[in-house]
């Protein structure tokens, strides 16, 4: 068996893809198939990441046709980190969903259970394909795969609200993709190639590059729900089934975010001195403030978490000016990617706990959550740990990330961002405490209906939730390893991630 890292890159895509096909073909075996694929993919991805740390980045030439004619798959630190993130969260959600969608005798639930697996495996495959692709048009196709599976998964819950949300999501996703594609067309018009590394080598500040950057960035921040284009996100993320919400918030929005980062680092860097990165940063500030303020007013837990996603997405754009100013210095990128990692883990844990709460109480209004600590201690603890990471209190993944962000902002003299990051943490504390404060309320023996009839949360749900929540804490002591992985060959042109 070849030990060559590059050899295995397409397998990471093919395994979940084949699992999707088989899960569709054989609905009765869908879960074992998906679980098997999840285990194989996760194992392979983690091995690949370790191998990349030791042996450097890897390139797989699909079809034997190297760029510019063919399409290459490239594994470097940036893509490796996101692949690992997807693997961790993917595995947890695979297990959780088996419990959450457990159909019993209900035909509608059976239908949801059957279709969740192929759609989820498609989504995983498309994420892996997206992170590995080195071709701007191929990225478009992966974006569409990602968008379609995400929309279908959102709609799976079936209620009118969620269908509306899914429709809105579909339209944003599609028009975002078309903006992106138009940008790709402009790139091809100017540089005559679709390969990111060749584009990078040829890139120069021309009107076409500017137009392309504007189109692509607009399209992608629509998909990533950066303020003020976030309007579609809260209803979709809040109304979808909990495992789906977790996927959407933790992973799907990161797909388009990844492309923004990748393309700005590799292709649009001649525009670093224009106002564009500053604009993204300012929008990020807007997202942090607006999202947090909205989260403080939501009546339902899942809506609150969804608005928290809006806020947290803002942080991922805050450092854009610093990140592009000096591409050699990777501290801003490290901070941003640490944040992406931290947010994904914590947000997945938060949504999964919300799912467990909804599952047990049939109600996720905040008013129904008093005394939760007593009723569902494990789930509350998981949510609390996720919340600590979202607030970015140490020791947590969120703290690790925000610390790096602050350091980056401060050493580069962006004092405004320093206050936004610290203030944003305090705002997050306010909305997280809206949940955790009442959770400690004493439960009256014969009191409130909703909390007195909690049902048992099955272990298949509570274990993955708790595992992710614990991870959100433990990652704070794994920072060096994450950064070691990230340092592998990003950006490609400068650090030779060829």
């Amino acid at each position, binding site marked *: 068996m*070849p030990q060559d890292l590059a*050899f295995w890159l*397409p*397998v990471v895509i*093919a395994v979940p*893809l*084949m699992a*999707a*096909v088989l899960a*569709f*073909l054989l609905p009765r075996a869908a879960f074992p198939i998906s679980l098997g694929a999840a285990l194989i993919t996760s194992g392979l991805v983690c091995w690949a990441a370790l191998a990349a740390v030791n042996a450097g980045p890897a390139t*797989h*030439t*699909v*079809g*034997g*046709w190297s760029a*510019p*004619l*063919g*399409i290459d*798959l490239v594994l470097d630190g940036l893509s490796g980190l996101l692949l690992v993130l997807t693997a961790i969260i993917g595995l947890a959600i695979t297990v959780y969903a088996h419990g959450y969608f457990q159909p019993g005798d209900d035909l*509608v639930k059976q*239908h*949801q259970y059957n*279709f969740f697996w*192929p*759609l989820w495996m*498609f989504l995983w*495959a*498309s994420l892996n*394909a997206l992170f590995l692709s080195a071709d701007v*048009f*191929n990225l478009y*196709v*992966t974006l*569409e*795969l990602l968008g*379609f*599976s995400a*929309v*279908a998964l959102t*709609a*799976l819950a079936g209620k009118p609200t969620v*269908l509306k949300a899914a429709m809105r999501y579909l339209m944003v996703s599609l028009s975002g993709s078309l903006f992106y594609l*138009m940008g790709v067309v*402009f790139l*091809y*018009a*100017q*540089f*005559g*190639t*679709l390969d990111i590394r060749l584009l990078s080598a040829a890139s120069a500040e*021309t*009107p*076409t590059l*500017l*137009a392309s950057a504007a*189109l692509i960035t607009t399209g992608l921040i629509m998909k990533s729900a950066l303020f003020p284009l976030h309007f579609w996100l809260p209803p979709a993320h809040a109304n979808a089934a909990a495992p789906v919400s977790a996927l959407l918030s933790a992973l799907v929005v990161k797909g388009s975010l990844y492309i923004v980062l990748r393309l700005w680092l590799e292709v649009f860097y001649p525009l670093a001195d224009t106002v564009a990165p500053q604009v993204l940063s300012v929008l990020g500030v807007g997202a942090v403030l607006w999202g947090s303020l909205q989260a403080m007013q939501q009546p339902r837990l899942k809506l609150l978490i969804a608005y928290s996603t809006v806020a947290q997405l803002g942080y991922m754009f805050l450092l854009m000016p610093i990140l592009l100013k000096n591409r050699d210095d990777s501290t801003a990128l490290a901070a941003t990617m640490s944040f992406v990692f931290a947010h994904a883990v914590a947000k997945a844990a938060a949504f999964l706990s919300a799912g467990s709460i909804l599952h047990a109480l049939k109600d996720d209004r905040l008013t129904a959550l008093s005394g939760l600590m007593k009723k569902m201690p494990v789930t509350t603890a998981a949510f609390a740990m996720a919340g600590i990471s979202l607030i970015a209190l140490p020791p947590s993944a969120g703290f690790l990330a925000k610390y790096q962000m602050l350091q980056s902002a401060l050493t580069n003299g962006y004092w405004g961002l320093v206050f936004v990051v610290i203030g944003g943490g305090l705002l997050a504390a306010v909305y997280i405490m809206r949940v955790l404060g009442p959770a400690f309320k004493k439960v009256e023996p014969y009191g409130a209906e909703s909390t007195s009839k909690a049902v048992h949360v099955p272990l298949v749900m509570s274990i993955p939730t708790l595992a992710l929540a614990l991870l959100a804490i433990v990652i704070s002591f794994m920072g060096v390893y994450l950064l070691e992985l990230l340092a592998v060959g990003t950006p490609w042109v400068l650090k030779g991630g060829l």
Partner: protein
Amino acid sequence: MPDFYDDDARLTRPRIVALALSAALVALLSLIILTAPGDLERLNLVARERLTESGVANPVTAVLLNFRGYDTLLEVAVLLLAVIGIWSMARYARVWIKVPDTPVLAAFVRLVLPLMVLVSGYLLWLGADAPGGAFQGGAVLGGMGILWIAAAVWLPDFQFQRFARVMLVLGLIAFVGASTLLLALEGSFMEYPAGEAKNWILVIESAAMISIGMTLMMLFVGGIPRLNEGTV
């Protein structure tokens, strides 16, 4: 959907703003696209230079199935995903038909169907050398299915969906299976052995064509076909 016609087209203030913004965008993009270099060779030359290595004579097919075959693999995945997505949303798709008043349509369809199968096969074969290929052939197949349903010659029922599932996944299985096999054989995903590309492409294309045809038909049905069982 009669309410479709109820949309009034009056220019309200938000619409004027939207119109102005779209127009501005159009103007800007038009100006900029005109600055793009006209004489740039882009990938044109490279693609044509290496056409002989691709195993087919039609450059578009060479790009689609060989040079950038991976794009096409993902695209076949998109097709399957679309059907799965639609089926997941619409548990019961009552196939909507209005039985035509005259027998002429049905008779015509019966007549034309075998011809369409033939045409799709021809298009597939043609793809190697001239415009044509799996998508074109698949489109004809899909059209055939749609005609079939529209003329009420035959309607898909619940039993049909089992058959449909197999047909739907055929293309992707062939594509991924062949690519993975080639990975094991040649060391690179979807790398055809020298000189044998054409055969591999033909096999993959045939499977893909069937799946594309079935996909288009299922897109038309708009849900899991379940005759006389519940409503949409």
